[in-house]
């Protein structure tokens, strides 16, 4: 008997299930219904409060957040960030329509490269799929315009997040993603990112920038913001 058959038949006999596995299949039924469980109340807010909560929670876990009115403000913000941290004027951007279409040359003197992350990237700029106010979490979804490696290889990660995509809770983001990917499907990688990389493995001392970015800077695009 194959390992698969042996394991499954052992489970079936212990659980008292027949091997007609589609007959009254409790698992498939549960998956199909994919009920929401208890969702903490803290994220159930109107949009403005949701954005505020997101900012508060992301800041609490050492991310920095700036609110801007539109994507056109991104180049200046990136430039200001690099100056503030005395970083070389060189960035790697995700090949995302909203970033590629920006007039980087006109507004800044940055060297702008685009593509997936490489080992020597210092600063990356990428676009979030969404945010979760509950914990100040960014949701990044992999795809041709959003390579995952940009989220992890650079020491500084700048993420552009549209305020309209900030949900109260994780479940709301799953619903959006499920509608987009189709039932039972996900992009290759979905990353929830909550603050910059950290470790406490040496004497329980908290240090930022373990393997991933040491700094996480979030630009919230909110046209309603004045």
């Amino acid at each position, binding site marked *: 008997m194959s390992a698969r058959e042996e394991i499954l038949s052992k489970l079936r006999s212990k659980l008292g299930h027949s091997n007609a*596995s589609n007959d009254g299949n409790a698992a498939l039924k549960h998956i199909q219904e994919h009920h929401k469980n208890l969702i903490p109340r803290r994220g159930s807010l109107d949009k403005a409060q949701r954005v505020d909560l997101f900012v508060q929670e992301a800041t609490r876990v050492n991310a920095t957040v700036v609110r801007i009115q539109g994507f056109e403000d991104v180049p200046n913000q990136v430039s200001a960030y690099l100056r503030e941290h005395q970083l070389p004027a060189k960035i790697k951007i995700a*090949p995302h329509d909203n970033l590629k279409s920006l007039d980087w040359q006109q507004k800044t003197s940055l060297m702008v490269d685009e593509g997936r992350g490489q080992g020597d990237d210092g600063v990356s700029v990428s676009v979030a799929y969404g945010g979760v106010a509950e914990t100040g979490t960014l949701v990044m979804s*992999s795809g041709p315009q959003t390579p995952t490696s940009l989220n*992890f290889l650079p020491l500084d990660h700048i993420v552009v997040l549209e305020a309209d995509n900030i949900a109260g809770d994780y479940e709301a983001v799953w619903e959006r993603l499920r509608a987009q990917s189709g039932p039972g499907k996900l992009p290759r*990688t979905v990353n929830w990112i909550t603050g*910059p990389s950290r470790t406490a493995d040496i*004497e329980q001392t908290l240090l930022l920038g373990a*393997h991933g970015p040491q700094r996480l800077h979030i630009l919230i695009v909110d046209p309603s913001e004045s």
Partner: protein
Amino acid sequence: MQPTSPNFKQNAREAIADDPLQAALAKLAVGFPMRRLEAAQRLPEFEDLRDQARDIKNHVLENLDQYLEAYEKKVTDSGGHVHWCRDAKEARETILDICRKAGAKTVTKSKSMISEEIAVNAYLEENGIEPVETDLGEYIIQLRKEPPSHIIAPAIHLSKEQVADTFRNAHIDLAADRDLDEPRSLLEEARAKLREKFLGADVGLTGANMLIAETGTNVLVTNEGNADLTNNLPRVHVVIASIEKIVPTLEDASTILRVLARSATGQDISVYTTFCTGPRRPEDLDGPEEYHVVLLDNGRSEMIGSEFHEMLRCIRCGACLNHCPIYKSVGGHAYGWVYSGPMGAVLIPNLIGMEEAQHLPNASTLCGKCESVCPMRIPLPKMLRKWRERQYKAEMGSATARWALKSWAWLAKRPALYRRVMNAGVALLGQFGGQGRFKSLPLASGWTSKRDLAAPAGDTFISQHHKGARGDQSGALMRKKVH
């Protein structure tokens, strides 16, 4: 690894005498519980979420066969491969086979307790493949050839000086006089060393905090980001996970994630929670070309329906270790195998056998703190007691102790005789207990080696009470003068 669990008592004695270890444990004993409590208090729904998390896993375990099949189908649909393995040996061989087919020389690894359980590192090395642990703590203990001493903080037993020595011995290409005094410099050295490994690895081997049946997804939870570089950069991503890691849906995974980090480190959520589904898609710019899941039984199916069934709800958060007074006294290595603390004391005998691990379920006061903090509400003390029952049935342990217990129980079942014997015993002890206590006493050295033993303070209560005594404010009746 060869378990040292049979030497638990000796291990424990050494651990208690190990000053750096004790300093680390003292820090852990305060920090983790305090942060967990704060996180729990920040979320009013925390206790209800624990109930739901428990119910989700109970539902999965009741239908595990169906969920495994549903999960497997989704992995396959998304272009991945599932390899079913009965035991550690099959899992090691399967992983080696995947690595060989990929022509791998270097395998980066993110922390996985299952990979510790199957001892895959040693096996890959024997077969000419270099496994590199990338979680900072795991990397340190890999260099030191030690097992983890904590499931989420594997190098918690070490001081920064010990880590510095380890790095000086391992990174011989670097200047010998470099400054490694602070955790920051140690981290930066490890980051640079491991960055080379991440970029050069052929295969990335990760564990899985959960496997989601709805989508065929594995969930990875880290704070460092090492699991992400491990699964994203190499050409092949291999997931090693045991069969009970299944959860039904994205919603169910979210519920469990809400209690996981809060219980583990006291974070609301870990920095990186990653959901990997299959290999990279044709248009993707990065991600692995191959995706394999090594699905391991290794004793789990045997636990289904047994008195240890509920242990399969465990999500490896480490809260039971962080709150256990035994763990906090002796640390993880004393337990003698890859797991430790209350969850280890229940799980290890299931995996390496009750004989080898016989001390572990006994080395507990059953104080119940572990159960009170377990996010999955696993009745750990009850299961420790179940192991004791199995041991008692198998007549394990010291014959003297069994005889003493048996004699006492024999007496306790015969109230009239019990009363006569106890009255006589109390009178006898009273004869010698004039100072109110004993510094040492024959047959009670286990007690008196560490503490004084109070002497009986008079005739038994029941005999006094039945003679009409009421006790009085002077205390005179409480204790007969014996001289």
